[in-house]
């Protein structure tokens, strides 16, 4: 028996990447800014998004959200109270969202009518970092209750993100949050990241975040 080596040179996630490229083109064509929010469970993504959507409605920014969870539509119900269109993606146990799920759940929505689309990924700091969803901006969230060194413990995600949002800053004093150490940890894995500090309780940073996500960012990292 003889063996022959045949070169293939194919990306393993090529199918997802192609679908994501199609979505990105569709989003650009409709002139809608899309962000993909990733964090561990319990960081406060939904509370922050609730406030962000309500603020968008107040300011006349047309925003919508897709929210991913392993089970239940609890988050979609919560977010729908803002008045913005919201759809739940139930992954039935899968630990991340993939581009085909986004495409399926957009059907029937007029993207041209939107200024901003937020995709809330499944709470997980590892797997979502491998899957491009066609977003303009990837947002990694970190709460002050989680520990300042999260970014260096999960470098793949924090490196691949354009924006790092610190949440629950109203609790910073109570948990003795070391802000400088956290900012240093972000800079160690992603020197180019934009950091926004927020509190869903006090509303701090919400307008800054809304401005950042609803206008086209001049610098965007290449998709992974």
């Amino acid at each position: 028996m003889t063996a022959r080596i045949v070169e293939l040179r194919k990306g393993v996630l090529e199918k997802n990447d192609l679908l994501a490229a199609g979505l990105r083109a569709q989003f650009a064509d409709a002139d809608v800014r899309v962000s993909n929010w990733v964090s561990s469970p319990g960081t406060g993504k939904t509370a922050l998004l609730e406030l962000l959507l309500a603020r968008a409605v107040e300011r006349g920014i047309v925003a919508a959200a897709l929210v991913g969870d392993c089970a239940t539509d609890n988050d979609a119900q919560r977010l729908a109270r803002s008045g913005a269109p919201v759809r739940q993606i139930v992954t039935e146990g899968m630990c991340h969202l993939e581009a085909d799920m986004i495409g399926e759940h957009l059907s029937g929505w007029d993207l041209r009518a939107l200024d901003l689309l937020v995709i809330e990924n499944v709470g997980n700091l590892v797997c979502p970092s491998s899957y491009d969803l066609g977003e303009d901006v990837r947002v990694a969230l970190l709460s002050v209750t989680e520990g300042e060194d999260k970014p260096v413990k999960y470098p793949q995600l924090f490196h691949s993100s354009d924006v790092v949002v610190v949440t629950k800053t109203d609790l910073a004093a109570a948990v003795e949050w070391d802000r400088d150490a956290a900012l240093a940890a972000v800079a160690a894995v992603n020197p180019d990241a934009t950091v926004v500090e927020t509190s869903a309780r006090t509303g701090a940073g919400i307008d800054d975040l809304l401005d950042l996500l609803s206008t086209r960012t001049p610098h965007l990292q290449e998709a992974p």
Partner: protein
Amino acid sequence: MHELSVAHAVVSTVVDALPSPPPRVLGIRVRVGELSGIVPRALEFAYDVAAQDTPLADAALVIEVSPVVIDCPACGPQQLASTHDFRCPVCGTPCGAVIGGKELEILDVTLDDTCVSEDMVEVSA
């Protein structure tokens, strides 16, 4: 833990590239960057499951791990020793411009030459 999804993608990508009837596949080589988010040991484990009952059932998986390489504005391409310290190892400048380490690709497949048709060679071209 999305290595099982990735292992299925590896298997289906290779199977789709094989001519019909599929030749015997002896091995496949995959490059996994340190920033890809894939753990080689978990991928090896998941691959054995994903390859079952496919033309890759007997194909050995070889994983090549590629390190993180940054493009330092002052020093040019530099390999990093870790995935969580994006400073140039020579001059210490923080640098986020990554030119290597995100790979997740199938490099090549090794086929039993006695049953390779010319179709496969064209696929690889």
